[in-house]
């Protein structure tokens, strides 16, 4: 009789303990799970509850470096960006010389666009292109809109260009 109740107790205890594991609740989350992704590249101007001050900004480490903008120009054609975006005017993809950016035109947004892709046809390049090259491409794309110092901006494309007007317009960000 004793042994029967002992084994029943043991089995009961085992079941109870496994139940404990299953029913575990993390009512008070540990501090690491409290992260609010505040510095993600925002794509919307709507901030429920009002703006957060100061707003952290992700910057491009290669801003203003002439060599890196020029490398960005090289990578722009090496990685076939010009196949869909032409020389900034757009083709299959939207133009990159523009005022209105669909997914945001800040360096962090463009970085996200390149790495993650976008739903309506922008390929996801993350996973292969090293990060420093993505920043170089970001710097070049921004230079097409006159957002880099003209002293650092490439004055001509890598191919034979026959229309100087196009070059001037490329760095002004104007739309025709």
């Amino acid at each position, binding site marked *: 009789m004793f042994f029967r109740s002992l084994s029943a107790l043991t089995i009961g205890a085992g079941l109870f303990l496994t139940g404990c594991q299953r029913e575990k609740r993390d009512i008070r989350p540990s501090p690491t799970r409290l992260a609010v992704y505040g510095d993600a590249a925002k794509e919307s101007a709507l901030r429920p509850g009002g703006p957060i001050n100061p707003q952290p900004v992700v910057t491009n480490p290669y801003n203003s470096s002439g060599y890196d903008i020029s490398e960005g120009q*090289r990578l722009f054609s*090496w*990685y076939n960006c010009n196949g869909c975006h032409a020389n900034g005017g757009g083709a299959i993809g939207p133009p990159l010389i523009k005022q209105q950016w669909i997914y945001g035109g800040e360096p962090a947004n463009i970085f996200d666009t390149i790495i993650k892709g976008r739903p309506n046809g922008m390929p996801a390049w993350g*996973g*292969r*292109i*090293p990060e*420093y*090259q993505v920043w170089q491409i970001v710097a070049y794309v921004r230079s097409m809109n006159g957002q880099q110092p003209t002293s650092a901006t490439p004055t001509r494309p*890598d191919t*034979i260009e026959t229309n100087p007007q196009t070059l001037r317009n490329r760095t002004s960000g104007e739309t025709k």
Partner: protein
Amino acid sequence: MTSYGRAAKLLCFAAFTDALAFCATDAQSVVNPVGPQSGKIAGLWWFFFWLLGAIFLLVMVAALWTLTRPNRGLAQEPLEGTHQVSQETESRATRVVTGASIATVVILFVLIVASVSTGKGLAELPYKKNTLTIEVMGTQWWWNITYQNSDSSLVFTTANEIHIPTGRPVQIRGLSNDVIHSFWVPNLHGKADFIPSRVNTEWIQADKPGVYRGQCAEFCGLQHAHMIIYVIAETPENFRKWYEHQLQPAGQPSDPTTQRGQQVFMNNACVYCHQIRGTDAAGQNGPDLTHFGSRLGIAANTVPNTPGNLGGWIADPQSTKPGNHMATVAVNSADMQPLINYLESLK
């Protein structure tokens, strides 16, 4: 003699023996021609060397003799307050100068004739029959090579290394993808500039087998000095075997390590720039790697093709060849050896 003098003497001696030593090696030397084109050029060079060397010697001897001949003193020439040179001396001097001038003109004329006839001879070499055409595109800072053929299925692409059969004229069609480069294999011919938007052709022919080193001879940017090309001349039979092998796509890797290596290659940015026929990688920005394992060097022969060098190259291309266009791709340590094994297996 002062210490400066001693130093100068030693330097001259060193330079002289170095030059001799260099002349004595076969590699990348204009004075070691292996084909009819470079033979004609070398012949012209030696002709100039000996003729002008003889003249140099003559002039040096004459100068030394002039400096060291006994001074005849003022008494020899009566100077009656006129400071006039005697008629005899005058006429002798005139004769000598006239003779030397005429000799100079004649020698220059001989040199022109030699030079023009060499050029004519180069142009008239029998190029039409049995030629092999290789298109070489210079690009910063490597050589993109396409073997041409009227049968397009025999056309393939490789990089940085040309194999040619001995005894057969080869036409090099030169293009450039970006700036002006210059193709120079001294053992085979002179320099041929590769200019963007143009095609320049040069004919080479190797009459004996060997490995002939050449390099870019027109400053083209940061790594101009590391843009080396090997022209490997083989017997026609060996060449045919090499050609047929090059047409084949890369084989499928057989053991788990090289399979993992292929996977690492396909999973990384490598496929954006490199082509390995037989896989889905068909990038054209960088050299074709289909038969990379059988090539002599890496990065336009900057370093020899060994597994150690290859690992160092992939891990950090910028320290081997600063400023070159290969991306620094982070391959983790566990994947590096399989990747090296795979690339070296592409024979």
